[in-house]
C-alpha cells in the first residue's frame, strides 16, 4: 500500500509535535533575550540554553511519537481487518457477512452498511439465477412439444423431399436451442451450487488417449495429425463424465478451428501438486485481445462470426466450470499458428468452498 492512512496520521502528529517544540523554543528564546539571565547563577550562552531545551524536549517528543504511532495503529486495526474480510467476498460467497467489531462507532456502522450491501447483492444475484432457471425450465415444455411434433412429421412417409429438408433444418435449430437451454440451466445451477460432482477414481492419461482417438476420427476429413505425449500416469478422484465432457469440448474446438493438414497434440504432465493436461493445436490461433474473454458465456470470436457455427458459445464456460468445480482451472495461450489450452487439476482433490 503506497498511501497508508496510518502513515499520514503519524506524519500529522509528528508535525504537530514538531511545531509545539518549535513554539516552546521560540518562547524560551524570548525569555532569554528579555534578561532572564540575571536570575541564573551560571551564565550561559543563549545557544547553549536552547540546546538544553531541545535535548530535554527530545525525549517527550520521541515518547509521544511512539505512543501516537501505536494509538493510530490500534485505532486503524479494525479497518484493516474489515478490508481483509471484505476482500474475500466474491460472487460465490455473498452469503458471508463481515464480523462486527463491536465498537459501536463509525466502524460498526461502516461494517453493517457493507453487510447490507452484500446482502442486497446476494438477493439480486439470486433473483437473476432464479429467473434464468425458471426461464430455461419454462422453455423446455414448448421445446419438447416442438421436437416431438417435428419428429412425428419427419418419420412420416408422405412428405415431399424439399419439405422434409425444411423441417429437418428447423429441427436442427430446435436442437441448437435445446443445447443453449441445457447449457444455461447447467451453468445457472452450478452458480447456485446445486450441481454435485460424482467422483470416482479416474485415470487422466486414459481420458486423454480417448480424446485423442476421437480427435483422429473427427479430424479425418481435414487430414489432421494427432499425437499424444503422456509424460505421467495420473489417477485422481474426479467426475469422469464431466472431465470427458470437458476434453471432448476442447477436442472439438481443436479440430474445428484447425487447418487442412494441421496437428492436435495431447500432453499429460505432472508437477508436485498438479496434473497438467494440454490440448495443443495448429490453426488460426486466438487473437491476443480475445484470449481473456474466451471462457465468458456466449463469447464468439470475431473470426468465427459470420461463418456458420453449430456451437452455442457456452462450451468453454462449461469447461471452465468443470475445471473449477474440481479445484482447478483452464488457461489458454495462443500464437497465430499454435493454440494451447491447459487444464490444471490439483493432485489432492480439495473441492472449492
Amino acid at each position, binding site marked *: 500500500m503506497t498511501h497508508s492512512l496510518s502513515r499520514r496520521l503519524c506524519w500529522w502528529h509528528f508535525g504537530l509535535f514538531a511545531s509545539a517544540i518549535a513554539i516552546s523554543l521560540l518562547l524560551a528564546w524570548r525569555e532569554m533575550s528579555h534578561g532572564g539571565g540575571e536570575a541564573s547563577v551560571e551564565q550561559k550562552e543563549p545557544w547553549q540554553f536552547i540546546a538544553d531545551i531541545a535535548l530535554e524536549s527530545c525525549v517527550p517528543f520521541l515518547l509521544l511519537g511512539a505512543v501516537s504511532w501505536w494509538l493510530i495503529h490500534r485505532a486503524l486495526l479494525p479497518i484493516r481487518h474489515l478490508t481483509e474480510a471484505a476482500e474475500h467476498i466474491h460472487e460465490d460467497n455473498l452469503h458471508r457477512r463481515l464480523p462486527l467489531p463491536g465498537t459501536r462507532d463509525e466502524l460498526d456502522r461502516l461494517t453493517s452498511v457493507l453487510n447490507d450491501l452484500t446482502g442486497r447483492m446476494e438477493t439480486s444475484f439470486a433473483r437473476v439465477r432464479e429467473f434464468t432457471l425458471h426461464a430455461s*425450465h419454462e422453455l*423446455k*415444455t414448448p*421445446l*419438447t*412439444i*416442438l*421436437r*416431438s*411434433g*417435428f*419428429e*412425428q412429421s*419427419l*418419420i412420416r*412417409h408422405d412428405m415431399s423431399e424439399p419439405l*422434409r*429438408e425444411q*423441417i*429437418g433444418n428447423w*429441427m*436442427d435449430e*430446435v*436442437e441448437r436451442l*435445446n*443445447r443453449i437451454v*441445457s447449457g444455461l*440451466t*447447467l451453468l445457472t*445451477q452450478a452458480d447456485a451450487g*446445486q*450441481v*454435485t460432482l*460424482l467422483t470416482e477414481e479416474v485415470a487422466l492419461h486414459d481420458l486423454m488417449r480417448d480424446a485423442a482417438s*476421437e480427435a483422429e*476420427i*473427427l479430424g*479425418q476429413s481435414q487430414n489432421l495429425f494427432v499425437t499424444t505425449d503422456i509424460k505421467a500416469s495420473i489417477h485422481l478422484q474426479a467426475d469422469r*463424465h464431466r472431465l*470427458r*465432457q470437458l476434453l*471432448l*469440448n476442447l*477436442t*472439438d474446438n481443436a479440430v474445428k478451428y484447425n487447418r487442412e493438414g494441421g496437428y492436435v497434440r495431447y500432453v499429460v504432465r505432472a508437477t508436485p501438486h498438479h496434473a497438467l493436461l494440454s490440448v495443443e493445436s495448429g490453426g488460426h490461433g486466438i487473437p491476443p485481445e480475445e484470449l481473456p474473454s474466451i471462457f465468458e458465456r456466449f463469447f464468439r470470436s470475431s473470426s468465427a462470426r459470420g461463418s456458420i457455427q*453449430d*456451437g*452455442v458459445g457456452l*462450451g468453454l464456460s462449461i469447461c471452465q466450470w468443470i475445471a473449477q468445480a474440481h479445484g482447478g482451472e483452464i488457461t489458454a495461450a495462443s500464437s497465430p499458428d499454435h493454440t494451447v489450452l491447459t487444464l490444471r487439476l490439483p493432485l489432492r482433490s480439495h473441492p472449492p468452498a
Partner: protein
Amino acid sequence: MRILIVEDEPRTAAGLKEGLEAAGYTLDVSIRGDEAVERISTQSYDAVVMDIMLPGCDGVTAVRRLRSRSNSTPILLLSALGEVDQRINGLNAGADDYLAKPFAMGEVVARLQALTRRAGDTKAILLRVADLALDVPHRTASRAGRMIDLSAREFRLLEVLMQQAGHVCPRSLLLREVWDYNFDPGTNLVDVYIRKLREKIDSEGSAALLHTIRGVGYMMSESVP
C-alpha cells in the same frame, strides 16, 4: 403392451401418446400424481412414463408410494429440471430410469423397451438384418458372407443399431449407449462414425441398410423408410 402416461401438460402428453402409439404401444393418460398411484395399483401396466412436476403429488413421491406398496411396475421419470441431482433423487425413490426434457421420442421407446424386457429375455447373440450378420460374442461382422473389419467403437455402434433394427435411434441414444456420454456434446462425432460405418457395410452393389432419418436419427432396416 400397455403403458400409462402421467403428464399434466396436455400438448406434451399428446406428443408422447402419438409417438408411443406409432411405436405400437397401447396408452392411457393420467394427469394427476395421486390418481396415477391409484390406477397403477389397481390396474396392471407394463410400464409407466411419469413427469416429475404433477398436480396431486409429484412424480418422485408417487414412485415412493408405489414402491412402499410393493408395486414394482417399471417407471420412467421425465423431468424438465434435468441434471444429475434430479436423476439421483428419482432413482433413489425407486424409479427405474430417468429422462430429461426435451427428449427424443426414440429415446423414450428405447428405454421402455429396456424396462419391459422380461427377466428371462436374453440379448440375442447373433444379430441379423437382411444379409448383414453380427456375432456378438465372437466380435465378428459379415455382409453376404464377406467379413467386415470393424473397430471396437464401430462394432458397438452397429450392435446398438441392429438391436434397435426397424426403430429410429436418436443421436442421444447412440451417444449414451456407445460412448457413455449422457450429455449432448454438440459435436458431429456420431455422424462421422456413421459415415465410416456406412462405407464399410453398405458397400457398392449391395442394398443400403443403414438409413439416416433427417433430424431424428439413424435406423437399420432392410426396407427404405
